[in-house]
């Protein structure tokens, strides 16, 4: 086992708020340049660019996990992270079935699907920034059913976090971890809340710009950067752990 540095929350140009230059290839190159061992691609309510990032990462030598940052009916953002593109696509299908509206690129920004060769495939027309009609409980259940993990996004932030929306983490909600935003002072937060309401704490970049990739990351002492190993690290099982 060894230390793997992972940034589990990176947007691409598919997110309306993501910069145009955040192509899957560019994100992968940035991850490598920052010395990360693995990254997760989590665009708003979509996984359309995860396959391209995984293929680019495989070629260049950085492991990429496919994910989505899902916006629940309560307007809670959470990261759904998987091992295989096919799992992320199945989660995406459920999200799309509960997502309404047409994007207004002039207001929210373009949503660009790009392949691993940096070629534009198409523009997505859905209102990806909107909230779905899926409750947070249903999201957690479905991600687990598909074999993924759920991390509540930026719990320290005053908007779109489970704490801002619901006041506290509902008892019985089986989140795998919570994420601190890059705005947080991780050290002082961790001093007081190593286990945030009993949940492991990670921190990640929430990058929307190339320069932001890896500005925050989490170190995992694991066998390999896969969902099962991350889950064990969250649970401190078989010597796997998060290293702060």
């Amino acid at each position, binding site marked *: 086992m060894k230390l793997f540095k992972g940034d589990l929350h990176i947007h691409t140009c598919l997110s309306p708020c993501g910069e145009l230059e955040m192509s899957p290839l560019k994100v992968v190159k940035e991850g490598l340049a920052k010395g990360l061992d693995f990254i997760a691609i989590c665009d708003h309510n979509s996984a359309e660019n995860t396959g391209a990032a995984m293929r680019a990462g495989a070629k260049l030598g950085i492991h990429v996990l496919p994910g989505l940052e899902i916006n629940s*009916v*309560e307007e809670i953002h959470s990261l759904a992270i998987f091992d295989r593109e096919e799992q992320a696509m199945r989660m995406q299908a459920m999200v799309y079935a509960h997502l309404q509206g047409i994007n207004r690129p002039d207001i929210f920004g373009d949503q660009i699907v790009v392949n691993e060769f940096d070629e534009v495939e198409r523009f997505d027309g859905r209102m990806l920034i909107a909230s779905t009609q899926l*409750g*947070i*409980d249903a999201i957690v259940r479905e991600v687990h059913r598909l074999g993924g993990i759920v991390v509540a996004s930026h719990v320290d932030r*005053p908007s779109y976090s489970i*704490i*801002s*929306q*619901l*006041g*506290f983490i*509902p008892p019985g909600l089986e989140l795998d971890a919570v994420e601190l935003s890059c705005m947080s002072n991780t050290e002082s937060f961790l001093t007081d809340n190593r286990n945030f309401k009993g949940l492991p704490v990670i921190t990640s970049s929430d990058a929307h710009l190339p320069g932001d990739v890896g500005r925050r990351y989490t170190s995992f002492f694991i066998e390999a950067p896969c969902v099962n190993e991350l889950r064990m690290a969250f649970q401190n099982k078989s010597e796997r752990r998060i290293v702060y």
Partner: protein
Amino acid sequence: MVMKVRDIQSEFNLEVAAGGSGLDREIADGYCGDLLSDVMANAGSGSVWLTTQAHQNILAVAALKELAAIVLVNGHGPDDDTRARADKEGIPILLSTSSAYQLAGRFYKAGIKKKEE
């Protein structure tokens, strides 16, 4: 005159979705908000709370802040977990198709406001 949940329910023709055993709770004030963190910080006890948030955590917030009742506005409805929790706590959940703004205006006009000290 003391206003009860039952009074606004009949006056404004609100549907009782759950927590019907609490219809005799007294209303002292009102509050609007969809962020539970804000409601926990600012809602006064005895308030009738107008919100679009239907997650079952609203019952915990209502119990914590000793709110009189919850009104889900804009046609929002509770799921089964939320209903069960409301019945258990005896906190009424009422339903309205009006917006929070419209309904709050009517409530205010009907005299639901914090008594001046």
